């Protein structure tokens, strides 16, 4: 057995260039994908894919934050950092899922929402807030899986779900460890120390009650056996979805609400 990985090791694995990306999961787990583009307000943001597809023969809305598998894709996907249009497209897809009574399945993988001038002009904060607001009331099952980086509000916008699962070596944090060290200690080189105190690993967050499930990865990380990783994610989504499908829309919304209502309750 390999030695226990440190939080810093897991951050490196979560960012590994060969780690399976949202598109790998979507291509492997869904059929008949029909991609929907644009927020109907300003534009299209390729860093988030939204569409309708069949999952085990059942129509679902699929939403994935895309990181590139090569340089070209990385540029096209803005290195996985969405603009406000991306989040508004997500909200549109989620409302449509509710209208047509389809479950929503989200794959989270972003360093964070893009911190650019245009993003601020077009209301990055409002777009993210509106996503959480809308997701909190959806009367269909929502499942979110953090497959790599769960970077701050830009990740949480897709994370208000009935079941939030994380791959063993993925991370979910209030800020990147570098940004964290820079803000708190004015020294971004202390990022490894930041990883230790931030409690950003799947196991830490499971213990804190922030997430519902840790999905095991192959020895050494998901990149060593993408097919096995994708299979493990498939099994957990399938299992969770069939139990959520038994519940009524209002029960699903209520359970999702209560789940987040309880997090960090000091009483």
């Amino acid at each position, binding site marked *: 057995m390999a030695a226990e990985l440190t939080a810093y090791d897991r951050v490196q694995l979560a960012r590994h260039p060969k780690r399976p990306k949202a598109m790998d999961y979507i291509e492997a787990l869904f059929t008949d994908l029909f991609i929907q583009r644009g927020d109907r307000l300003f534009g299209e943001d390729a860093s988030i894919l939204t569409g309708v597809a069949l999952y085990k023969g059942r129509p679902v809305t699929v939403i994935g934050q895309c990181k590139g598998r090569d340089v070209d894709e990385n540029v096209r996907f803005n290195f996985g950092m969405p603009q406000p249009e991306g989040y508004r497209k997500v909200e549109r897809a989620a409302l449509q899922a509710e209208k047509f009574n389809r479950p929503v399945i989200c794959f989270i993988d972003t360093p964070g*929402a*893009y*911190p*650019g*001038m245009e*993003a*601020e*002009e*077009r*209301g*990055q*904060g*409002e777009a*993210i*807030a*509106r996503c*959480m*607001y*809308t997701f*909190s*009331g959806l009367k269909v099952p929502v499942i979110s899986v953090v497959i790599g980086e769960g970077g*701050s*509000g830009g990740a*949480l916008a897709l*994370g*208000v779900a009935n079941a939030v699962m994380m791959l063993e070596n993925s991370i*979910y*944090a*209030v*800020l990147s460890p570098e*940004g*964290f060290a820079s*803000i*708190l200690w004015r020294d971004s080189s202390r990022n490894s120390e930041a990883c230790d*105190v*931030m*409690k*950003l690993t799947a196991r830490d*967050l499971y213990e*804190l009650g*922030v997430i519902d499930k840790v999905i095991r990865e192959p020895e050494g990380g998901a990149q060593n056996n993408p097919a096995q990783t994708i299979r493990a994610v498939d099994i957990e989504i399938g299992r969770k979805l069939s139990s959520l499908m038994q519940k009524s829309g209002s029960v699903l919304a209520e359970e*999702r*609400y209560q789940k*987040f*209502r309880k*997090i*960090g*309750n*000091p*009483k």
Partner: protein
Amino acid sequence: MSSVFDIKRKKLAFMRALRRNSSVRVKSSDDADNIFITCPECKEIHAKNDLAENYYVCPTCGFHYKLGAYERIALLADEGSFREVNGKMTTVDVLEFPDYSKEVKLARKASGLNEAYVYGTCNINSYPAVVGVLDSKFIMGSMGSVVGEKVTLSIELASKYDLPLIIFSASGGARMHEGTVSLMQMAKTSAALKRFSDHGGLYISYMTNPTTGGVTASFAMLGDIHLAEPNALIGFAGPRVIEQTIGRTLPEGFQRSEFLLEHGYIDQIVKREDMRNTIAQILMLHERGQR
């Protein structure tokens, strides 16, 4: 037209309210620093007492000084009407974060507050409401689990009694020391606001300097009505982070209230002297709308 006497009366009432409700007092002292203050904007020197009479707004250039939670409430609420709720709730060190307890202790001492968010019920020009205020003196007004919980409780209180809700934001964003638990407070408060809105509740979000990060990306941007103080910094990403990302300096006025107004994210910029009347007007206009 309001007469000179009206203005005088208003100021006097304000001073009285401030004396009564304020946790921070301007002490009389020989120390010049305690009597005078230099405006960070126009560098004019003003007596602190004059400043207090002018709603902590620079009489020369109109710069809005940061206002503490209780000072804000004293300016807004009808005299003696404010009843604080859950004022004794204190910070929880959820991650057992190094030195966090120490920092909290210092913040409590320096600010005179138990946490960064103060809320309760009050009357505003006789209209009852729930008012919550973030205070940037307490660890930058950042949102950790207690702020998230108290914001949510204030929303639930407004919902329970069918009262309008007014939240004043002043925050650096999520509280780093509570990590992902802080982050989740964005989801919690946003979800509570969705319920409140579905219930028919009126929510006025009033953004003051600075409103950034996780507060902007949650309850600050989910109001039925968005107001902002002049020249307040309001944004998701901080200016320093944006400059590092794009590799150049930001133009003058970027992410300021006027910029947000121009881009469609706030309804009106309201000077501090007009805050009370503007809110009272909105409450009056929605009176019949309350269920």
